């Protein structure tokens, strides 16, 4: 999950945030990291660029991007499908 945190920081240009400051279960949006709708689109780009994953159903977005842990679990599950 440390790598994923670093990818999020780089993709979203969170220059004042360190990976260790992002909790695994901390909400990414609203009260957590305070990300916005453009950040959500950038996270979709991150999944495509770094992991080759396209989200088939946009309605799954809120659950996938709830926290670093939910993102990591989604990436692991998607990669296991193609393994």
């Amino acid at each position, binding site marked *: 999950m440390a790598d994923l945190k670093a990818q999020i920081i780089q993709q979203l*240009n969170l220059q004042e945030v360190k990976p260790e400051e992002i909790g695994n279960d901390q909400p990414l949006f609203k009260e957590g990291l305070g990300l916005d709708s*453009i*950040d959500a689109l950038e996270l979709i780009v991150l999944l495509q660029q770094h992991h080759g994953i396209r989200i088939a159903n946009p309605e799954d977005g809120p659950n996938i991007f709830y926290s670093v842990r939910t993102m990591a679990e989604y990436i692991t599950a998607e990669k296991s499908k193609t393994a």
Partner: protein
Amino acid sequence: MSNANTYITSSCIIRNNTVVKNGVEVLTEADTALPEFLRGLYDRFSGQYPKFHKMDLLSKLGWIATEVLLQDMPMETYAPEETGVVLANTSSSLDTDERYFETVREIASPALFVYTLPNIVIGEISIRHKLKGENAFFVAETFDIEFITGYVQQLLDTGAINACICGWVEQYHITYDAALYLIEKNNRGLGVSFTAESIRKLYL
């Protein structure tokens, strides 16, 4: 058009790695590229605003120039609708347009796309300072001081606004030039009569 009781109460010029506030040089950093120069200005004059790092260079330039402009110039006496923002430049958002175009070849960047309009800098300034007054962004070959002065004066004369941040925010690749002025009906701060000649004198 009347300029009675209308004043330039603050000014900020950023060019050649130098910041000039109210006609006085307050900072210069030679041999620093624009992104690093703007980051340095952010650290010195603002901070604690993470959204700054997501902005394109044009927005960063206008945003930080406004930070300097409004330093020691509290605007809380105005309702959000009373302060307008009127800006102009010559390159529009071309620098970011080009960067965005480069990303389109692979995966188009949403973060860059939102800055492919020059008036986004007005939005960033307005969000930061909670401004909801009249705003406009003009693209012209040069800084038409007479036009901007007349336009702002008319907004003030008609009562559409009671204060205005106006001026020039230009950036394309490594070239940049920002000149912002705070115009108010109440005299304070710099306290120079608001005329095209006064704006020009502070700009040069």
